[in-house]
């Protein structure tokens, strides 16, 4: 593997959710440790599953992985980091200030800003704190999904620039005095990232157009901030020899090779490794040790036929349609196909003559173009986070900044660059759209987990704010949060793949939602190989593994569920989307 040759001190793995970053980061860490290096594996994903991969609980402390000597791991849990941050601030005044005041402080410090900053502090410390880092030869970062990572990486540049210019009050970033101390740390972090001798970035993608486009975007954005030492891994490629064995395998192989051929030029220029699809789930040490080995063991050719009996998406849509209107939200980790399934639900509803508005906040979504104007009863829109943020900034400047002089406006503009602004802007766009669900169907997909939860946080904060104002007036009101909690108005569909990690992640997300008072209505298992009844030995082996996971979903996690087959053609366009909802073929 090229990306492992002469590996520097810091290795970052990044890519769209679901491309296999964690598996590859773990496999890399194992390989380096077994080659005699001391390795620290760090996850900055709020929903990290590094611990689960190794079968140990890790958390916020550096933990030794007992099965692999010289390997240590750390999961930067933003929530735990934020709690530690809160304790640091509030601890000293407990008993000093009135209890109500202390409670008020804690409440203010439970927002998204605090979480972001606390996690970021830990992250920069790892890049710069020689006391921690000097005892390791390599620090391998399994980073959070792309958008978040970019923000984390860009912040040091933005913040040190901000401080140098001596502008403003440093607003969200905490008191300026405190930041001054960290300034050296931030600029050291930036230097470490920009130093190709010390830092290597590995972009992980699947051989899919959208994943490759996303990788190209990350490549550009991170190269622009100095992270120039980059490698590309294409993960989960179907081996050519499988293609001869079955029409589905042939179609997938063709699709993947076409995507690779059409890869953006800037990716072509990077050193590239291809990692073949394995017949087994990438959980546990043995599986991970085999991941980066060039020749895959051949799967058992004599597998039994696989039969998945499961409700179809169309069965779920029957129940959704019965209510005549409402909000249908597709949630789940990145890369599981939320946008595609949102579109499939929308076209299936529209096919039945019901009025539907399909909307997405996924920056990479381009289904809108495929669908636009091509179907009666269906309207399509897109929440563009950048456009929404710009609109929000302009709106605040126009209204709240109206009476300010030039200097005051400049100050406000600077503050509006705070990382929190985008969340608020997207949330406002989201609230506008869900109001429509009173008279028609609104189907929306949401951006990956961390973002979704922030959105819900904002929804909760907004709800409390409105409730406080309107309770005083005795008015009648419905906030977006109340709408999400009411299963008559909102149906949350969980999207997952029939694989160990995605199912567990979805279950964790479900628990988070329940804490917010939202009960998911159904689970949809996407891209099911078992539902497609493959004949290729490798796919059949994967299909067998899937049955176990589908069983778990049906019995443990979901109140109702459906399975959607992996199609031979990429599900783009109304006709192919309708196929996703079709009843599963009975096994022969």
């Amino acid at each position: 593997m090229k990306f492992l040759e002469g590996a520097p001190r810091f290795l970052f793995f990044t890519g769209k959710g679901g491309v296999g970053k964690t598996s590859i980061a773990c496999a890399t860490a194992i390989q380096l440790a077994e080659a005699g290096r001391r390795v620290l594996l760090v996850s900055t994903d709020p929903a990290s599953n590094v611990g689960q991969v190794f079968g140990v609980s890790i958390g916020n402390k550096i933990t030794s992985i007992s099965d692999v000597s010289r390997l240590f791991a750390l999961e930067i849990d933003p929530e735990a980091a934020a709690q530690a941050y809160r304790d640091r601030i509030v601890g000293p005044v407990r008993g000093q200030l009135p209890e109500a005041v202390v409670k008020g402080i804690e409440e203010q410090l439970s927002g998204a800003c605090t979480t972001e900053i606390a996690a970021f502090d830990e992250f920069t410390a790892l890049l710069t704190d020689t006391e921690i880092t000097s005892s390791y030869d390599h620090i391998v970062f399994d980073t959070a999904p792309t958008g978040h990572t970019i923000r984390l990486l860009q912040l040091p540049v933005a913040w040190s620039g901000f401080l140098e210019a001596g502008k403003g009050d440093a607003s969200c970033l905490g008191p300026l005095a405190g930041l001054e101390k960290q300034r050296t740390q931030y600029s050291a972090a930036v230097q470490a990232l920009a130093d190709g001798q010390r830092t290597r970035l590995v972009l992980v993608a699947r051989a899919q157009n959208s994943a490759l486009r996303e990788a190209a975007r990350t490549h550009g954005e991170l190269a622009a901030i100095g992270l120039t030492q980059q490698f590309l891994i294409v993960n989960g490629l179907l081996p050519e020899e499988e293609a001869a064995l079955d029409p589905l395998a042939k179609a997938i192989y063709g699709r993947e090779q076409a995507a690779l051929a059409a890869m953006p030029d800037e990716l072509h220029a990077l050193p590239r490794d291809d990692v073949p699809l394995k017949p087994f789930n990438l959980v546990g040490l043995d599986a991970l040790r085999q991941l980066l080995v060039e020749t895959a063991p051949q799967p058992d050719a004599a597998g039994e036929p696989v039969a998945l009996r499961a409700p179809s998406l169309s069965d779920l849509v029957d129940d959704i349609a019965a209510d005549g209107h409402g909000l249908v939200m597709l949630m789940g980790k990145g890369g599981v196909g939320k946008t595609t399934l949102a579109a499939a639900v929308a076209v299936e509803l529209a096919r039945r003559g019901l009025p539907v508005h399909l909307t997405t906040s996924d920056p990479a979504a381009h289904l809108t173009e495929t669908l636009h104007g091509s179907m009666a009863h269906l309207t399509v829109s897109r929440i563009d986070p950048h456009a929404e943020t710009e609109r929000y900034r302009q709106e605040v400047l126009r209204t709240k900044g109206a009476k300010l002089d030039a200097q005051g406006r400049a100050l406000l503009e600077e503050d509006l660059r705070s990382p929190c602004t985008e969340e608020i802007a997207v949330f406002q766009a989201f609230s506008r759209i869900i109001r429509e669900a009173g008279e028609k169907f609104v189907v929306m997909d949401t951006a990956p987990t961390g973002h979704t939860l922030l959105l819900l946080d904002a929804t909760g904060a907004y709800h409390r704010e409105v409730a406080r104002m309107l309770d005083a007036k005795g008015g009648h009101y419905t906030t977006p949060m109340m709408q999400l909690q009411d299963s008559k108005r909102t149906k949350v569909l969980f999207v997952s793949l029939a694989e160990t990690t995605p199912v567990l992640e979805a279950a964790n997300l479900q628990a988070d939602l329940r804490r917010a008072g939202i009960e998911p209505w159904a689970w949809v298992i996407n891209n099911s190989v078992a539902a497609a009844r493959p004949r290729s030995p490798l796919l059949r082996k994967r299909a067998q593994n899937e049955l176990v996971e589908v069983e778990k979903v049906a019995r443990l996690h979901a109140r109702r569920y459906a399975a959607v087959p992996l199609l031979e053609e990429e599900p783009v366009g109304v006709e192919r989307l309708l196929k996703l909802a079709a009843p599963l073929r009975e096994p022969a």
Partner: protein
Amino acid sequence: MTTIHVFDPALCCSSGVCGVDTDQALVTFAADVDWAKKNGAQIERFNLAQQPMAFADNVTVKGFLERSGQEALPLILVNGDIALAGRYPNRAELARWAGVKEAAEAQQGSCCGGKTSCC
């Protein structure tokens, strides 16, 4: 030299842009403080959510919080004495306390004098 200390309620950020709805009073005040500082005023702000020790360490502020609660914030001290509570001062008040002349405005005469398009 006059020193103005502003004790803010628990805020995410001092300009309020992090909230679900941006507070006009905070936006205006942030600009006024910036202006006054540029004109030589000594102003320091303390955010209850970020620097609670500053509140606990100051006898006047601590007593105020015990008596009136955090709802009564912001509290503004001028040379250590309570000058204002419950709302933010405007630019004229800041200027008066700090002994700063609103020179920029006074000399400019018409607001159209500059390069701005404010008229």
